[in-house]
């Protein structure tokens, strides 16, 4: 068995790439998979804090590439899931310290002893993005139902097509069902129709995601969180399990009350 390399990218910053990586990796680890996360954002490292591992960093990916440590030494073991590791980005070094061939080599070294390698791509379509997709078997494009995020996602999908990186899958993150219902937010169907790629998950907006980041504990570990459920479902789909999409009609609020009164629910 050899690992599947999954790269999470988006074009636009701030759509939830790092959150998606931390949550998908944790969900895969919860399913008993051996997972290695790689932070591809050289100079702007963040996956470590979102995963709650910032105090354990000794070496980073640039130390590995420049031969200051062995690959194993830069792999930080997770606090709760011993089969999950993080390879952190360098914080201070030149972002050109990593090349696409370095990423391919590191992933190839990791493949025999892992089930999934999850790479967090930086925003943009520059060198860091090229590095992040170089080794990918499967690219996940994260977007929000919002004009600038969808436009940038389309650019990224176009580049992936041109580079023949296979068919990417789409994660629509931070969908607000009430806004969609009121026709004040693009629906998942709208976004899919615009981008024309395969959907792998829709993550509803959920304030618990921020609470999870604050604590360094990804939200997938919270059984009650809707966003956590959405990420757990995506992790299952990455393992080839056919999971139905969640019902994202608004759970409460005025509209729901009106519908109930009108006898439509």
């Amino acid at each position, binding site marked *: 068995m050899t690992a599947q390399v999954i790269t999470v990218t988006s074009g636009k910053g701030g759509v939830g790439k790092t959150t998606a990586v931390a949550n998908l990796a944790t969900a895969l680890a919860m399913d008993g998979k051996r997972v290695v996360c790689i932070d591809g954002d050289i100079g702007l490292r963040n996956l470590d804090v979102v995963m709650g591992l910032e105090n354990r960093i000794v070496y980073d990916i640039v130390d590995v590439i420049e031969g200051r440590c062995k690959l194993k030494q830069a792999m930080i073991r997770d606090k709760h899931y011993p089969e999950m590791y993080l390879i952190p980005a360098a914080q201070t070094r030149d972002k050109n310290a990593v090349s696409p061939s370095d990423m391919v080599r590191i992933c190839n070294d990791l493949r025999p002893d892992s089930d999934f390698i999850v790479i967090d791509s930086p925003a943009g379509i520059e060198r860091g993005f090229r590095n992040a997709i170089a080794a990918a078997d499967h690219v996940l494009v994260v977007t929000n139902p*919002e004009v600038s995020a969808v436009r940038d996602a389309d650019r990224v999908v*176009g580049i992936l097509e041109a580079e023949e990186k296979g068919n990417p899958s789409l994660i629509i993150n931070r969908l607000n069902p009430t806004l969609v219902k009121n026709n004040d937010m693009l629906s998942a169907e709208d976004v899919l*129709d615009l981008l*024309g790629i395969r959907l792998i998950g829709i993550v509803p907006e959920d304030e618990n995601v921020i609470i999870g980041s604050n604590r360094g504990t990804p939200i997938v570990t919270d059984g009650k969180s809707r966003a956590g459920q959405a990420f757990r479902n995506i992790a299952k789909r990455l393992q080839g399990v056919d999971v139905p999409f969640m019902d994202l009609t608004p759970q409460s609020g005025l509209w729901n009350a009106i519908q109930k009164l009108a006898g439509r629910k």
Partner: protein
Amino acid sequence: MGFFSRKRSATSAKERLQLVLVHDRTDLTPGQLESLKDDLIKAISKYIEIDPEAVRIDLEKEGREQRLVADIPLKSSSRHRAG
């Protein structure tokens, strides 16, 4: 802002994105599309009489496929031969 104009913001987002994505993907600005249309009208007019005002040239998308669709009605005088 009125209730109805507020309601349509997602529709407006989708319509605007449809146009922007088509131009982003083809790397063709609306201005370039206009000159393409003018050149096409000139070329066709050498052989057959058309009404330049009625010509419609649009970029359309189907999934991730792009296509240039031209609708070029012939001038009614072109039908004289048949009559």
